[in-house]
């Protein structure tokens, strides 16, 4: 076979040293052999999620490390502002699919590489698609997309009749994230080690907005401010200097323009404080941080695919604001994780005769453990399925909207009731178990 010949080629001598020689720190199951390089070159399938700053680096790194069968998925198109760090893209590529241009670039540049692009949302792919990969690497800036991929990989796990996890159903997830000069990389063995959901409290609320939203479909007051900051300021340059978040005059100008824009779009809530928050809290993407985090992730993918070295266990943070600093620790798997433990999640209700359905939904959105976006709730009463609220389908939303202002008791939900919750943050549903702290007798009196 041609590939077999290739694995003995000189260009892989560096990889062959770590793959064909035993080492004191390699995985216990590691058996040095030329077959491992063959596996990387001809069999191993990797999925890269995201073709942005991290994704470009990851793709380049993995292709240079010998991986040939790489799929890359990203629904975005290339924007002018991406070009400073997303180095697989050129000016002529603006407006085209990130995944396709990135794949094309690497396929041309690295001989024999067969990158397959997917220009779509991750949610459009079915479990069969995800099941084909040996390792999945994520370079995303969105937490909800991370949570979705994580949920998908957990849903692919198979357990035998004794609830013992089938090891071959595990697809390791290597996840990287960056913010300015800070970044993190982690290895998740779904069902075995802490998953994204187990450590949800580690992710700060998201503050970046995609440029296309800002330009075309603003929804939040923040979007209006971003628009003035990124587009109008440089166009009109009212004071002849760059925007200074500490200058009250500048902020007043931005406030005025953002309010105009908000009015135009009927958006409420552009306040001076909000303007200040948005203008000052910009965390720019830094190319060097992306290089570091993607490099760490690619190293872990390589370790997982080859066992030539034990993988990261399991979370590393990086920061180079003051010197260069890293910290590695083992994030703990939560026994009651909403995704990777298969048990219903108790929710304590103080007073079900006062708690309304909308309060419960608000709880699911605000509670750090759930952090849902737009949950839909169904349940089972006396063996019959009952829809409590479904926000995503217009007709059902209209029909179930009145339930929002009913209390849990009015809805006929009793102590111990199980509620099935579906949300965009996870491909599988979460089961809640209501626990009333006031007993029935007390409530009736």
């Amino acid at each position, binding site marked *: 076979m041609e590939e077999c010949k290739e694995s003995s080629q000189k260009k892989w001598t*560096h990889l062959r040293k770590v793959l064909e020689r035993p080492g004191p720190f390699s995985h216990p199951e590691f058996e040095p052999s030329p077959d491992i390089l063959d596996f990387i070159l001809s069999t191993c399938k990797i999925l890269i999620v995201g073709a942005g700053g991290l994704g470009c680096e990851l793709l380049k*790194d993995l292709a240079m*490390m010998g991986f040939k069968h790489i799929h890359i998925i990203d629904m975005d198109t290339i924007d002018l502002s991406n070009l400073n760090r997303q180095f697989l893209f050129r000016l002529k590529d603006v407006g085209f699919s990130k995944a396709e241009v990135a794949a094309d670039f690497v396929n041309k540049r690295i001989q024999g590489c067969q990158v397959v692009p997917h220009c779509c949302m991750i949610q459009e792919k079915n479990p069969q698609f995800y099941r084909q990969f040996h390792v999945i690497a994520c370079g995303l800036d969105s937490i909800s997309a991370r949570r979705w991929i994580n949920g998908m990989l957990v849903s692919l796990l198979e357990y035998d009749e004794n609830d013992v996890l089938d090891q071959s159903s595990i697809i390791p997830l290597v996840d990287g994230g960056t913010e300015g000069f800070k970044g993190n990389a982690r290895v998740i063995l779904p069902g075995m080690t802490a998953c994204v959901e187990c450590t949800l409290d580690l992710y700060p609320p998201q503050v970046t907005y995609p440029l296309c939203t800002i330009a075309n479909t603003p929804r939040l007051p923040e979007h209006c401010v971003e628009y003035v900051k990124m587009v109008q300021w440089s166009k009109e340059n009212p004071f002849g200097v760059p925007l200074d978040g500490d200058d009250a005059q500048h902020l007043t100008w931005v406030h005025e323009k953002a309010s105009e824009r908000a009015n135009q779009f009927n958006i409420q809530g552009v306040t001076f404080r909000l303007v200040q928050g948005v203008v000052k809290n910009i965390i720019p993407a830094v190319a*060097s941080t992306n290089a570091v985090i993607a*490099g760490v992730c690619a190293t872990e993918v390589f370790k997982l695919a080859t066992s030539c070295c034990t993988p990261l266990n399991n979370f590393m943070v990086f920061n180079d604001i003051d010197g260069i600093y890293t910290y590695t620790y083992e994030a703990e798997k939560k026994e009651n994780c909403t995704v990777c433990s298969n048990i219903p999640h108790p929710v304590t209700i103080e007073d079900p005769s006062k708690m309304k359905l909308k309060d419960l939904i608000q709880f699911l959105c605000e509670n750090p453990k759930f952090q849902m976006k737009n949950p839909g709730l169904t349940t089972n009463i006396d063996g019959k399925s009952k829809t409590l609220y479904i926000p995503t389908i217009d007709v059902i939303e209209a029909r179930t909207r009145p339930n929002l202002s009913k209390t849990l008791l009015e809805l006929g939900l009793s102590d111990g009731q199980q509620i099935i919750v579906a949300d965009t943050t996870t491909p599988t549903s979460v089961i809640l178990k209501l626990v009333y702290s006031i007993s029935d007798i007390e409530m009736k009196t």
Partner: protein
Amino acid sequence: MRNVLERVLIPLSKHLWECEVPLLVCQSIGFLGYIRLQIKEHTVIEAHPDNESPDLRLDQPWPALNDYLNSIDIEQLDQKEKSHVPPVAILHYYLNKYKDSHDGNVPQKRSEREQLQQMIKDSGHSEEGNNRFILEENFEQAIHYANTCATTKPIPDHVQTILDDDCCVKLTQNSSSFWIMCSALREMVQAEGALPLKGTLPDMAADTQSYITLQNIYQKQAQNQAESIYRRALEIIRNLGLPQDSITESEVKYFCKHSSELHLIRGSCLADEYQKTSLDLTSYLEDPDSLIFYYVILRGLERFLSEFNAYPGQLDDQVEPDILKLKGIINKLLNEWGYSHVLRDERVHEVCRYGGAELHSVSSILGGCAAQEVIKVITHQYKPLVNTFIYDLINSTSATFCL
């Protein structure tokens, strides 16, 4: 630079040290990375510290701030006004009340601060149906600021070191604008006992009008202080016989805004490490898990490379013999430096397994780190590495040593 031979590196390091040109050396081998930044003197103006607490100076209000804050009588405000008044005004009001009952002293000890916080808490409650009391956000923030921000901050050690440095005290015609500004700053600090204000206010719960008024008051004062330092700097320049345009006003403003972030780094010459590191390695060598051993191994590897013109383990059938040779070299090296510690065999073995292999992803990590350090050195922003960084990608841990 990557994997350069000792006989090239040592003279290069010495030469660049003499010409004061910074040198950054990288090594990428297997799962190990090494970065060394050699820089004779480096100054940082804007260090971008994380979570800096605001400097409100309510213990030494200047007239403009005092007049404005005194015009707000917290206890006369109605409920709506009370919920919009800036936390700074709240804190000022109760700080004065506290002073009235404590012989004019501001709270210093923790228990005293808690007393002040209690005063704010007691007045900040507002009633909201069902007899439930809530504390308005602005009052909460005032309580929070009472902890650390009310009183003028002492001069940070890293700034005081700079102000006491010979370069600052004894200016010459060759002094850089940094040191001239430091000298002007020193005069002001000696006169007023505090660094200039940053001129910024943190975001706080308040109505736009009063927030902006306050922000302007802080900004104006910072501007006045910067102008005063600029005038001092011009005088220094004149006395030194330097041209008046050696320092610009905007340069001084920037310097003043970040005067609490100033850092001075005086490095060491890489070539000197080949005699012996200035850092005493004893305590590090006593911990068998310390990453300092990888530093020692990399030094051994360089010597191996010079002696045998090949990496240890470069040839498949030489891995075992090379482990012994490399161990010998390392032991000799430690002996020369005056240490009698032994290192874990498996680490030497692992490095010989690499046989000089370079992994793309490891080099990519080092490239990212090195690029950022170079940007820091050029821009004088953020604190650079001091001075040796070891990245162990086997365990994904790293360490920094000042050698």
